[in-house]
């Protein structure tokens, strides 16, 4: 077994008594591409929210690279190497694609550092590289607000790539994409999973099959099953709550 990058143990969060995530254990290895599936309300997004610091857990621990994230807030967790893509594409619509990527370049993120930041060769190189990867090389000058829904999804993934995270958390990255765009995204994710770990929440089973190394099924905040796509799909309990409807 290779080294663990993320260890989530006994994680619990309750909103007004409702346990969205309930005593969950969840481990991700280095270089792994994990898919998390489950019916609506299973706690998938809440799990990602807690890992990246958006929601504070009520109990349990989250360790990233063996460091406890409990005392850290969002930007500190981000700087440690966790990148988060949200369910609705969250890009800076009033800035150009270039500027969206530029902001995400992980240097000089203090006030004075960013005020006197001089654009460096390395950053241009990186922006070019990422823009090609996310199929947006031609539209760097356009405002992010003018992009199509699918392109915004790609741009947000690109913003994460600029940050060079060791752990990527992607919430429904192919929602609203055409079949062709989904295929391109699968290629993209397979390409970027080398050298980093990725957790993907997705409903589209065909897409999950294209990318997943391992699948985790959540149900009512608890772990229901975990294993390869085939194992999970043949699991009777999973069929009951999710796949068979």
């Amino acid at each position: 077994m290779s080294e663990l990058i993320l260890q989530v143990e006994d994680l619990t969060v309750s909103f007004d008594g409702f346990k969205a995530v309930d005593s969950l254990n969840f481990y991700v290895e280095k270089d792994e591409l994990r898919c998390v599936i489950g019916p609506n309300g299973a706690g998938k997004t809440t799990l990602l929210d807690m890992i990246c610091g958006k929601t504070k857990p009520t109990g349990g621990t989250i360790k990233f690279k063996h460091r406890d994230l409990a005392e850290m807030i969002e930007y500190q967790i981000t700087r440690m190497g966790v990148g988060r893509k949200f369910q609705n594409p969250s890009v800076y619509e009033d800035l150009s694609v270039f500027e969206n990527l530029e902001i995400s370049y992980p240097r000089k993120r203090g006030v004075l550092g960013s005020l006197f930041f001089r654009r460096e060769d390395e950053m241009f190189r990186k922006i070019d590289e990422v823009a090609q990867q996310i199929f947006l090389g031609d539209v760097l000058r356009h405002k992010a607000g003018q992009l199509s829904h699918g392109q915004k999804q790609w741009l947000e993934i690109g913003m994460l790539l600029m940050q060079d995270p060791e752990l990527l958390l992607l919430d429904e990255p192919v929602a609203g994409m055409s079949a062709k765009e989904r295929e391109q995204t699968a290629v993209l994710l397979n390409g970027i999973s080398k050298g980093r770990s990725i957790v993907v929440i997705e409903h589209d089973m065909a897409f999950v099959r294209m990318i997943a190394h391992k699948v985790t099924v959540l149900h009512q905040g608890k772990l229901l099953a975990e294993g390869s796509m085939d194992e999970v799909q043949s699991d009777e309990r999973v069929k009951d709550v999710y796949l068979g409807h």
Partner: protein
Amino acid sequence: MSRNQVSGSPGTGARAALASLRQNRSFLEKYSFVILCVLILVALPLTFDTFRLGLAAKFLSLGFCAVGIVLIWGYGGILSLGQGVFFGLGSYMMAMFLKLESTNSGSSAQALSSFFGSNLPDFMAWNSVEELPWWWEPFHSVWFTLPAIVLLPAVFAFILAYANFRKRVGGVYFSIITLALSAIMSIVIIGQQGVTGGVNGINDFRTFLGIDLDTDEVKRYMYFITCGLLLASVLIGRFILRSRLGKVLVAIRDREDRVRFSGYDPALFKAFIFAIAAVFSSIGGALFTIQVGLASPSLVSIVPSVEMVIYAAVGGRLSLVGAVYGAVLVGSAKTFFSENFVEYWMYFIGVLFIVVVMFLPDGLAGLLQRLQSRKSASGSTTETRLANESGGAK
């Protein structure tokens, strides 16, 4: 896969994109600053007499606040209804210095002090204050006063803003806090008449470092100093907005939550820009007091603070240069109204604000921009489109 048109050295595609973003700056963005320079440094001094130039200087002093409001409101998304507080800090610090200077020199002052048997500013003597309060003492020194006008509001604004933004108090709640602050400041000043001059403010000073402020020549100089500092503020603002920090501000304004996940601490950025705007306001206040000869609680309370926001709204809340025009135009309108129909001024400014918000959300600057792009669009629609496309595919 997208075609890889970038066959040169790595990074060329990104560089080309940046260059074309720069090229696409409109005529207004490129030349508005130069036009403003010509207007206030050449045109106004040549056409206005000293009295009108003095009025212009007064509005330009208020323009500092409007420039700051463009930074914090237009780009940072922080609506402050308390910029009068910082204007007042600068104004009162300058007034304290001038008052102490004129108390310690000049014949009328000596007559007064011999009459009251003390060397206190006149209003203190009238209020039977017997000793100069300790916090007045440092303002004997110009070398304390001038740095304090810049630093004190900066520190105060930064701490206030950071304490709130760190706890994620923002939006309307922060606006209400600033509103309350300006009310508190004017109440304190009016209430502590003995040491602040109360509702009359602090006035009646004639010299600054021994220079008589009442001569035409000095008034002209002061006008040019005001212009110079105001233009410098606009340039500093522009430098900030064009830096990486400026882009982060826009990102915070539009999606503060997302910015945290790009690895930034939004509270720090918002507090920084709030402090900058406070410094601008304070400098404006100090210049106002030198030229108008008055520091008054009526300039720090809610009404002037809201008026400052209206200056920025009329000029265009995304335009630093527009803010200056907004301050001068609305300020002139106010003078006109209060000379002729005092009681209608408040209604007028209310209507003006509603009209701007409803029909001109980007103010005069936005209106010009729209007119211009319509003109260029009708002239060369296909041309620009082709240029854009070939630019993208190059």
